[in-house]
């Protein structure tokens, strides 16, 4: 068994290029570096230096950790005002403490809707700090006395500080030599941008923590590859899974590091698949272990974060409208479904909710379409106001509605009119293209009680009813129906298209010719319903299942992400572009630049940024160099060398690309801190390169180069320290740091 395991492991590393070189003995896996180190220590009698050397593994991470906590925690409460995105995440924390349902629409600065775990943790930190959730977290406002914001910031800084020892272990696990390990750790420790971003109530320190942790677990798991199915192997597999679950529940950016682990796993399985000596059962076991550890487990963690989210947020809040009507009806303190009559009759006043993911309420307002018919706009809108109310009226062929009559109920197949309560106009459609989705027909509000035609007629087609099979009534909350335009035969639809500024960026409502019964954007249900003639009921007694809520919230998250196309009207001088990050072209002012407040500037350590960026180019050159020489028959790399380039060099580069390219391709507003996870991989890459070139040099050369690098990194860190710890007083006095005009830490 041991022999076959060994064979597995060997073929596991035997990939790509090595396959063609059949002459190389396949079992030549050399583990050089550790052997070297041990030999040295074993031979001589232990002097003090040797003891220091021997215990390095315990005190080095300790020292680094202490330094990390110092740099991240020192004077963390200096600025008593809500700084930058604290305004958002603090607010979300408050929602958790007040247990109000909210929907993350923090698109102003962070631009992404995020899963709940990170904000839950912020909420937790507030809870631990004894905060009651009453503060509004308005940007630039002073924290009230009773709010222990220092603790909340420390809580966040903890995650940032924890990255430093993990970077140490990661570099060590990737077989870097000690000075290179120290250099990598120093570069993470002495990174001004990492320091600054960790010192506020933001999600980025947690995201960074998750990314670093996942990379560490992956490296540890890889190091265990020869010990398949042994306890430590299993441990690191599970740890990788858990950390993936953690990081993706913090921010969706976590999916990129997940992709890195995914690529590694696919490659690993592919090489195992090619090992015909491995029994198929073992192969299947490998596959199953990974599916459980890397897919099922992270997904469970992700689910758990939502389960907690729903469990905590049981009160009605500002995010209600994003969810289905049934979900809202189950929140405490909601208006939805409370005392609403169960069944709709003519004369009922109701709001009509789109059942698509992230769908809003059917809305109209006095503003008219600037093109097309020029009639009154009809949109879909999440905010609850009186413009969402519609009256159900009989069609023009039937006897008109009179307030005195007996309630006439509406059934599946009834043709009705919908009258907008505020303006008295009829919901109307006609042979004019919709303003954005040109293939569909425009929907407008037109006429009044008496003026109008057949084009105001809509036929109700019931799709589903969660409460009953009886189709002779339309029920509040539970009945899903479509509205078919009688003359055009099209269906009322609200997709996820936003109108331009003239429509206040609300969702476009159209009439689509396509008859797709499964298109949920054409499904509608009654949300609020009032009718004095009917007895109040309790339509909200049907609970919507967790699964449905989970999927609904996730799809709503994704779709409103997609709606975030950059807005050329919006000028945002905080935003930066992808090409500016690796060259440290710009920084970011985190607060106003008034002389009286403590100012923080988001800018990295120049050596770390420029060095790692140059390192990426150098690595590309290195790979091209060795492959070209290999093709020309030079056999200069041992199997160990190839593996080292592959796992300690190539994988960090892949990680960098995975965290960087999406921001290049995505056409959306981006900020400097989007580069931080990618930077971590670039740092690992830099460590690998330095290690690669210096590993076999003489001690003198090593000391000299590492010395210069270490001192420069620390020196620059200290030099730029004020931007992290807070700049007090007039900004002019910090102009010495302004090396370039785009580094706007000073107005001078």
């Amino acid at each position, binding site marked *: 068994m041991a022999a076959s395991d060994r064979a597995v492991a060997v073929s596991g590393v035997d990939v790509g290029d090595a396959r063609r070189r059949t002459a190389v003995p396949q079992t030549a896996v050399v583990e050089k570096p550790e052997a070297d180190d041990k030999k040295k220590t074993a031979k001589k009698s232990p002097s003090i230096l040797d003891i220091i050397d021997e215990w390095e593994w315990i005190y080095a991470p300790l020292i680094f950790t202490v330094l990390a906590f110092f740099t991240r925690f020192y004077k963390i409460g200096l600025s008593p005002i809500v700084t930058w995105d604290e305004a958002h995440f603090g607010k979300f924390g408050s929602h958790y403490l007040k247990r109000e349902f909210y929907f993350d629409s923090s698109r102003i600065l962070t631009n992404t809707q995020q899963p709940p775990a990170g904000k839950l943790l912020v909420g937790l930190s507030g809870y631990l700090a004894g905060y009651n959730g009453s503060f509004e977290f308005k940007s630039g406002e002073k924290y009230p006395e009773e709010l222990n914001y220092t603790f909340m910031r420390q809580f966040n800084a903890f995650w940032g500080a924890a990255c430093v020892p993990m970077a140490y272990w990661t570099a060590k696990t990737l077989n870097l030599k000690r000075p290179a390990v120290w250099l990598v750790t120093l570069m993470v420790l002495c990174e001004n941008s990492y320091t600054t971003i960790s010192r506020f109530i933001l999600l980025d320190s947690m995201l960074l923590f998750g990314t670093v942790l996942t990379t560490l677990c992956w490296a540890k798991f890889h190091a265990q590859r020869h010990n398949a199915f042994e306890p430590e192997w299993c441990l690191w597999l599970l740890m990788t899974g858990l950390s993936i679950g953690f990081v993706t529940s913090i921010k969706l950016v976590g999916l990129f590091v997940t992709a890195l682990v995914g690529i590694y796993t696919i490659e690993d399985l592919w090489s195992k698949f090619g090992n015909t000596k491995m029994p198929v059962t073992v192969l299947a076991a490998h596959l199953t272990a990974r599916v459980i550890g890397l897919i099922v487990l992270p997904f469970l963690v992700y689910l758990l974060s939502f389960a907690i989210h729903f469990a905590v947020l049981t009160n009605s809040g500002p995010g209600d409208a994003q969810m289905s009507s049934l979900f809202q009806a189950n929140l405490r303190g909601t208006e939805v479904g409370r005392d609403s009559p169960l069944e709709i009759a003519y004369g009922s006043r109701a709001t009509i909710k789109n059942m698509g993911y992230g769908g809003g309420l059917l809305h109209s307002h006095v503003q008219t379409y600037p093109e097309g018919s020029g009639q009154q706009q009809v949109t879909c809108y999440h905010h609850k106001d009186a413009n969402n109310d519609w009256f159900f009226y009989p069609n023009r062929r039937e006897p008109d509605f009179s307030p005195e009559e007996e309630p006439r109920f509406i059934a599946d197949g009834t043709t009705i009119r919908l009258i907008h309560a505020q303006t008295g106009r009829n919901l109307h459609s006609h042979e004019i*293209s919709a303003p954005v989705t040109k293939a569909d027909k425009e929907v407008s509000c037109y006429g009044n009680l008496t003026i109008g035609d057949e084009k105001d007629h809509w036929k109700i087609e019931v799709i589903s009813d969660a409460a009953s099979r009886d189709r002779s009534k339309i029920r509040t909350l539970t009945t899903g129906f479509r509205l078919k335009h009688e003359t055009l035969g099209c269906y009322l639809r609200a997709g996820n298209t936003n109108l331009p500024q003239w429509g206040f960026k609300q969702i476009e409502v159209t009439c689509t010719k396509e008859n797709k019964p499964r298109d949920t954007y054409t499904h509608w249900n009654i949300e609020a319903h009032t009718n004095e003639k009917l007895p109040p009921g309790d339509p909200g007694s049907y609970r919507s299942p967790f699964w449905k809520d989970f999927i609904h919230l996730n799809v709503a998250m994704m779709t409103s992400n997609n709606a975030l196309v950059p807005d050329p009207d919006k000028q*945002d*001088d905080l935003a930066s572009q992808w090409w500016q990050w690796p060259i440290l072209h710009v920084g970011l002012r985190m607060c106003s630049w008034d002389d009286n407040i403590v100012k923080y500037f988001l800018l990295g350590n120049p050596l770390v940024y420029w060095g790692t960026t140059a390192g990426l180019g150098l690595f590309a050159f290195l790979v091209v160099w060795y492959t070209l020489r290999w*093709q020309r028959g030079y056999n200069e790399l041992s199997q160990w060398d190839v593996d080292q380039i592959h796992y300690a060099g190539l994988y960090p580069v892949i990680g960098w690309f995975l965290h960087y390219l999406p921001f290049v391709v995505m056409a959306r507003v981006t900020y400097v801190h989007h580069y931080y996870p990618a930077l971590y991989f670039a740092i690992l890459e830099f460590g690998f390169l330095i290690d690669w070139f210096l590993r076999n040099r003489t001690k003198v050369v090593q000391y000299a180069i590492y010395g210069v690098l270490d001192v420069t990194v620390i020196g620059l860190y200290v030099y730029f320290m004020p931007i992290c710890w807070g700049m007090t007083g007039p900004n002019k006095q910090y102009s010495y740091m302004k090396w370039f005009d785009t580094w706007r830490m000073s107005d001078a």
Partner: protein
Amino acid sequence: MAATTPQGSVRQRNVGGSSKKNKDGISAASSDVELDKIVKAARTLASAAGSEYDYKIVGVIITALAFLTRFWGISHPNEVVFDEVHFGKFASYYLQKTYFFDVHPPFGKLLFAFMGWLVGYDGHFHFENIGDSYIANKVPYVAFRSLPAILGALTVSVVYLIMWESGYSLPACIVAAGLILLDNAHIGQTRLILLDATLVFAMACSLLCYIKFYKLRHEPFSRKWWKWLILTGFALSCDMSTKYVGLFAFITIGSAVAIDLWELLDIKRPGGTLSLPDFSKHFAARAFGLILMPFLFYLFWFQVHFSILTRSGPGDDFMTPEFQETLSDNVMLSNAITINYYDSITLKHKETKAYLHSHAERYPLRYDDGRVSSQGQQVTGYPFNDTNNYWQILPVQVDQKVDHPVKNHELVRLRHLVTDTYLLSHDVASPYYPTNQEFTTVPQADAYGDRVADTLFEIRIENGKPNQEFKTISSHFKLIHNPSKVAMWTHTTPLPDWGHKQQEINGNKQIAPSSNVWLIEDIPSIPADHPRRAKPEKEVKTLPFLRKWFELQRSMFWHNNQLTSSHPYASLPFQWPFLLRGVSFWTQNDTRQQIYFLGNPIGWWIASSVLAIYAGIVLADQFSLRRGIDALDHRSRSRLYNSTGFFFLAWATHYFPFYVMGRQLFLHHYLPAHLASTLVTGALVEFIFSADSTDLELAHQAAKSGKKGFAIKRHVTARERFAGQSMMGAWIATFAILALAFAGWYFFLPLTYGYPGLTVEQVVRRKWLGYDLHFAK
């Protein structure tokens, strides 16, 4: 049928030859003495292969059919159809030498202009609307249309040649060419005045030339080798100079070249190691032929473009004033007047065409969002002529010097004439933009009092030189507020009622954007007959070619990226292989005729499913190889990966890049990829329905086992590969596919040729996937 009869006899002759060789091959492995015989046998085989007249006959027939299908009824409809509006118009502009602007490079349009010039057309008609009559306007439209039709017909022949040159059997060639021949999309797009015929033809030619070139790899640097290398480059250049999607062909050929170079570099190369200087020669030759030379050709078309278009025209507005001054009878040349201090001027925003305006009303104290203003006099943008648009331009120091011209980078003040106030900006947020500065005006007392610094503005002429004179119309400039360095900017969102729905003017901290550019429209203080308005006959200036090209290129890319608005018939890349929707090109109500641009659904679905089958075969092969199961013989695999793989690569590189393109896309963007997919189809028909002959495989193994000089250095034709094999299966498959394709082509023919008109019922029958056809009711 004519094609199959001769083949029978040839095949028989071959059987003899090959069986002999077969025997030799085996004995050769055992005895070196036999070697001579084998070489001789191979030679006879080669001569037999030389006369492939069955291929030639079929080729001629297919070409004839291609011309027939493309030219049949080409004069119908005699009206402007779809994008003929654009490309017909551009041809007219060329013929009239008036400058125009378009996002596509000039080559394809130049061809049309050349056609028009050949038939002596003067370009009087401007193709304004779809449905305009050609007859009434006396346009030689048949000549115009016959150009794409010729190229479209030749495309079919080129596809046939590609398959032939790649060594595929006759059925495979016929399937590939037949699917293009009977494809409604290719026919429809190449019968009209559109660029795609040129594009697809050039793309197909580049594949053909590269294959020719690659086949000559054993005679590097020979005359023929150079010829095909240069021709490949030329075809690529034409492809790219027609439309920028032609760049995808560079990716296709480039990938193939990269792989080829990689193999040349191999130290264990079958043909012997190449020394590094030799390799460098290979590298340099390809870099010259496939990159440098195509680029020079590309530039050449622009040179032609500039040298034809010498007169001012509708494209002027897209260019800088310096560029416009190179065009004759340009407004810039004739109307530019130098501005002097104390002139009153009107400032116009270049992008929104609004004038800088002010009136006695003031900003409200509080805006809707709670922010406060300075309550100063409103400064707005107003699109109509009005005396409130008049501003007097003043120097910093009052000197009353007359006839003193304003120069670039000088500080000026602007006095609003009607209210006698001075333009000013200060650190107060503008009505809509908290980040931007408010613009207002102050009375003279303040302007010469404590606010003096805030009333100073710098004139920054775009691309200007120091001390350049400031002129009306031709000087595009930014007005930079001197103390705060913000640029005067405006946008189209109207102010609320308090601002009379006029445009907001504010100070933009981002100075770089071109939306900050203004120009001086006129100097109302100069009377119409004043000598300063006299127009001296100015001569047309010249600019270096590269500068003109660079400017045009930037402008083209910028406008290409702006093409994001939605179009009723736009489609998405994932819809194309399934042919989910087409484009309505033209309709005529009285006759119920319509042209609906749509591929032959049957042909497309066959081609697309074959792509999936190909991917499946490759994946299955990789998986089984990985498990040590070798199911394919050497030749089949080599062909599957190298030749068919090249076609598949061509498809992928012409298809997937569209997924990341942000602009609006149409079905016709898939045509080059579709062409590649038919090549894969032909190749797979052969792969699936016939097996390779075994003797070549044996020969290959003999070569592999170390017989020097035995390696087959020559291209092996289909006839040799399938010697002695029954091709019955492949022929049956070919006829089945062509019969289906023919049926589909014939069924959708009325929509492609726009003739005859269809009844409701006939239209409805053709709405296969809910195609949005007209006249369905």
